[in-house]
């Protein structure tokens, strides 16, 4: 009898120490995380200087309408009459006709400013983030059109499915207090 209760006591002791060890281990993880802690919440963003406008952003986002949209850095824009982000490679005519446009959803609006300049604005409710205009503008123009994750739409998934599909490693986590990487004027 005495032997038996000893056995039970030993088992209890072992179990309690194991329990304590587990709690201490969790405490250790907490301590480790706290020691590493810096105030950096992160969000996903595209580095426009790495982006190759492959079009994955339009299809891989978990949202039905991608959180990635084209944005326009007006300060870099040349306000060209012939915009390679707006017109297809061989436009039938230089006007706003749908058949001349590169954008598959007609999300870019072209408005006359003064001769010979035109302003191009993006209607984000139409833009699907396919990057066709980005490719055109970067190849022949100033590169003032580029893709960005729009944080009013982005769900900030733990693993971004666009990032997993990005061929150039342009999708990355950035500090939440600087959630955009906008292209800057690059005067020589």
């Amino acid at each position, binding site marked *: 009898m005495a032997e038996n209760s000893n056995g039970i006591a030993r088992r209890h002791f072992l*179990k309690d120490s*194991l*329990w304590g060890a*587990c709690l201490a281990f*969790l405490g250790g*993880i*907490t301590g*480790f*995380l706290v020691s*590493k*802690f810096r105030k950096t919440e*992160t969000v996903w963003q595209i580095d426009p200087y*790495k*982006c*190759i*406008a*492959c079009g*994955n952003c339009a299809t891989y986002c*978990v*949202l039905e309408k991608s959180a990635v949209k084209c944005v*326009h850095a*007006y300060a*870099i*824009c*040349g*306000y*060209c009459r*012939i915009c390679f982000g707006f017109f297809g*490679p061989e436009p039938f005519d*230089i006007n706003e006709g749908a058949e001349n446009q590169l954008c598959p959803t007609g999300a870019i609006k072209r408005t006359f*400013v*003064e001769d010979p*300049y035109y302003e191009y604005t993006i209607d984000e409710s139409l833009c699907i983030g396919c990057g066709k205009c*980005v490719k055109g503008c*970067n*190849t*022949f*123009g*100033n*590169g*003032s059109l580029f893709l960005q994750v*729009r*944080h*009013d739409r982005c769900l*900030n*998934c*733990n*693993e971004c*499915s666009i990032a*997993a599909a990005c*061929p*150039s*490693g*342009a999708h990355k986590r950035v500090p939440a207090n600087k*959630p*955009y990487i*906008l*292209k800057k004027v*690059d005067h*020589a």
Partner: protein
Amino acid sequence: MIRFGYIIIGISFFLIFCPAPIVYGGRYGLTLSLAPGSGSIGAGSAVERFPPPEFESGYQQPLTTTPAPRQSIYEYIDAVVLLVVLGLSSYLVLKKRSRRAIFILMVFSLVYFGFWRKGCVCPIGATQNIVLSIFDRDYVVPVVTAVFFLSPLVFTLFFGRTFCAAVCPLGALQDFVLLSAHGGVSVPNWLESGLRLFAYVYLGMAVLFAATGSAFIICRYDPFVSFFRLSGNFNILVLGACFLVVGVFIGRPYCRFVCPYGVILRQLSRISKWRVTITPDECVKCRLCEDSCPFGAIREPTANWPIYEYGKGKKRLAFFIILLPVLIFLGGWLGSSLKTVTSRMHDTVRLAERVYLEETGQVEGTTDASLAFRATGKEAKELYGEASDIRAQFGPVGSLLGGFVGLVIGLKLIGLSVWRQRTDYVPDRASCLACGRCFQYCPREHVRLKNAKEARQGRGESS
């Protein structure tokens, strides 16, 4: 070649329709000579081929809008809600013992953490963030993610798997579709143990890929998150639908056979301070609760070890104990020798292999990734170096993973050949999801409820 053609077209367009006055001629010469070199985009910063005009009509340039991300205060609210729901769930399971209340809380969690918060971030996926932060010096786990990972573990250490009962939205979704409270398809014990091995392997792989910074596979293959978002990858949606259809007949298949976080919770639940009991006080061995558990987590009383089995069982146990280190070693060796395959999960390794094939002329054509790499102007040798460093990491971490799987298999074999003595009907400490279905099957529970009701009425009359 096509790109070069475009450039020619571009330049000719540019010359014909040039929008700026000739005054800029000198700068045009400069930009034109730049154009062919930077034909592929992403090669560097924006090239000013067309200098921004100076407007005379008083036109104001609009600013690029930057809508702000979701305020982090909401995420802290999520963490607080998680803690409150965990506490409430533990109270309902252990003190109140009411299946109905647990169910209502479960529906709340399904709506809040699932459909409202879109199921992300969840404690299951947060495991990977913790692992990544241990291996990657630069990665910092957000506070909320850390709370999501740690608090269910701590609660499990105290109260058992009350997180699974009413907090986890993935569990809640499966529990919601489970039709038969009992008598559904019961999975035999050996099959359950075998299928559960997958969860251990899954956890191991998730740790391997998170530690090497390759991918978060738990998030990538989460079958239910697309239901919460009501959109997502079609294949994953089909996978989730399959889990739910199976889940109508077999209780919570994801939780029992796949969930990698459940693997950790199981081990902590084994040694929890308090836990679910079927009966509120004593077991009368009436067998009424025997079939009440849809997750096969109720263990029946056992007879003494049959004497003719004793010698055989002892030998088998000794054999498995000797086998354990062999299994660990084998697993470790296998895990490390698979590094060529497993390391392909990492982008850089995949890219390096592709570039190597292209450079040596073994494949024709290019991919988006190899084009993007060429556009950076980096040396292929540099890339190969990076890739082989990453592959080298997969060796030791892979052998740890393999050793872990070997250990799990060994311990499982040992566990199956140990004769445990039970005198009562008890929930299995590891497998019990604390859903509370068995409570109402126990006659002692009905006695308790009746007594409690009488005590309440008695108090009501006396006051």
